[in-house]
């Protein structure tokens, strides 16, 4: 059993580069986000009961178990699937809960967390492909915000965690700003696909154009962050401008991502290529000195997107 796990581990390590590459923006953004969550988590867990540590390990393992699609592949290649997956979950979840164990000194919970994760590898697998996130996560959204519906099905947990973090705005005057900046940095991943032309025609062209599409998206952000904004303004009214700055960055990333998507449109290309300007836009969130360059690119992409619409859809 251990030999096949060793082989599996080598196989996974070889995959690592490709996994990081295919993770794209969400993956790159997820790393600092996870760090923030871990630090917040460690602090918040100070007064939490001891069993919450194995619970986190098991929840992580379950969510991973039901997201992966390689069960059948591993079975066909002759691996002892239950053991292989269980050991992988145990390794990773131990790493995740390690800071909590160190902080709380609750070491007896370590074997419970390991055994719990190990057991997750043996859970039965669903045969029908389905999105991980339950329907209520997307069903409240208007269908015209199809990019968000799709993104929430892909990265719903990440967005949900970030939103929950916005509810901790009373704890610090900069909390909401940080959450809004991190949220803004995820926005390019929402617009990373091109829709079929029939959808563009019906929703964008006959639905008020790019400007209105952008406004629809911005209105959604405002609705989503109403509780966080209210809490921030109630507890730190003197720092109202920090919320405004955060919303400004969200508006910037929305405008940039939408304009970029249609400016770089190409028939047959289904995925938006993330290039240098997107990287600059991303870094401008943390280095505002880059904002003039991003502004220049934004104007350029808006013009290109308009040209594309003129060329592709008008007589």
């Amino acid at each position, binding site marked *: 059993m251990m030999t096949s796990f060793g082989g599996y581990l080598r196989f996974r390590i070889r995959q690592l580069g490709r996994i990081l590459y295919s993770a794209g923006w969400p993956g790159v953004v997820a790393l600092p986000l996870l760090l923030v969550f871990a630090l917040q988590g460690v602090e918040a867990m100070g007064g939490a009961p001891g069993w919450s540590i194995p619970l986190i390990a098991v929840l992580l393992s379950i969510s991973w178990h039901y997201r992966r699609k390689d069960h059948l592949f591993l079975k066909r290649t002759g691996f002892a699937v239950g053991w292989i997956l269980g050991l992988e979950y145990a390794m990773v979840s131990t790493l995740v809960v390690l800071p909590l164990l160190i902080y709380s000194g609750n070491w007896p919970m370590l074997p419970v967390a390991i055994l719990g994760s190990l057991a997750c590898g043996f859970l039965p697998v669903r045969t029908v492909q389905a999105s991980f996130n339950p329907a209520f996560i997307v069903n409240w959204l208007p269908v015209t915000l*199809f990019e968000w519906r*799709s993104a929430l099905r892909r990265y719903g947990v990440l967005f949900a965690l970030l939103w929950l973090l916005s509810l901790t705005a009373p704890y610090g005057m900069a909390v909401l700003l940080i959450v809004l900046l991190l949220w803004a940095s995820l926005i390019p991943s929402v617009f990373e696909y091109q829709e079929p032309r029939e959808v563009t025609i019906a929703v964008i062209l006959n639905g008020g154009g790019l400007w209105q599409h952008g406004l629809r998206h911005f209105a959604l952000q405002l609705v989503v962050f109403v509780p966080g904004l209210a809490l921030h303004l109630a507890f730190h009214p003197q720092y109202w401008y920090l919320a405004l700055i955060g919303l400004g960055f969200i508006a910037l990333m929305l405008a940039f991502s939408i304009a970029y998507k249609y400016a770089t449109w190409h028939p047959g290309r289904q995925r938006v290529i993330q290039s240098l300007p997107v990287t600059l836009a991303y870094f401008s969130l943390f280095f505002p000195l880059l904002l003039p360059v991003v502004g220049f690119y934004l104007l350029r992409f808006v013009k290109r997107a308009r040209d594309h619409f003129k060329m592709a859809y008008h007589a």
Partner: protein
Amino acid sequence: MLDISNLTASYGNTLILDAINLKAAAGEIHGVLGGNGAGKTTFFKALCRLGPSFSGAVSWEGTTLSPAEIGYLPAEPYFYPYQTGQEYLELCSHRSPGFPIDKWNGLFQLPLKGLTETYSTGMRKKLALLGILAGGYQVLLLDEPFGGLDLESTEILYEILEELKRNGLCLLLSSHIMATVRKVCDRVSYLSEGQIQQTFDKVDFPALEQFIKTKVHDRTKAAWAEIRKPL
């Protein structure tokens, strides 16, 4: 009347379509036939401005027709990822909100609550077809609409095409299946070497089959003679 005049399309310096002229009436299904690589898909893509550089004029009932007024069913439809069939149809019918999605889906019985990633090739084709019907277009371009469909769905598609014809839509359709062309098309244009070589009315379809046989036979006669030559 759909009037396409002097449609020229090229990829870089390679000319694919050379001044194509074609007319099709409302309520007509006009077949576009041709060998692999003859330019059928390029013809449709040029009308929708998807890809090739092009020139020429397209009008519908005497008025210039914009690409946004043409529905296009590609041979291999693409959908936005992590989207359900229901959402796709709701988006497509955004400009014609009266489109009864459930009633039309009664024909194909697609699992509209499921993600499009879980659909088979045939199901994707059916969903894309419903999508362009939901769009309320008057002119439809159907590139190999029967490709990947099962026998029952093929019959249903025949019925749908008849219904669209009755409703006065103009359809350009490409297919490699002669039986299909014979059954659904009112006229057929044969595309070869970047030009429409000949257009056949329904009564002339036997002549069309003879035309294709002769064309193939002329091309293959010498090759077969070589193959059959003893080594």
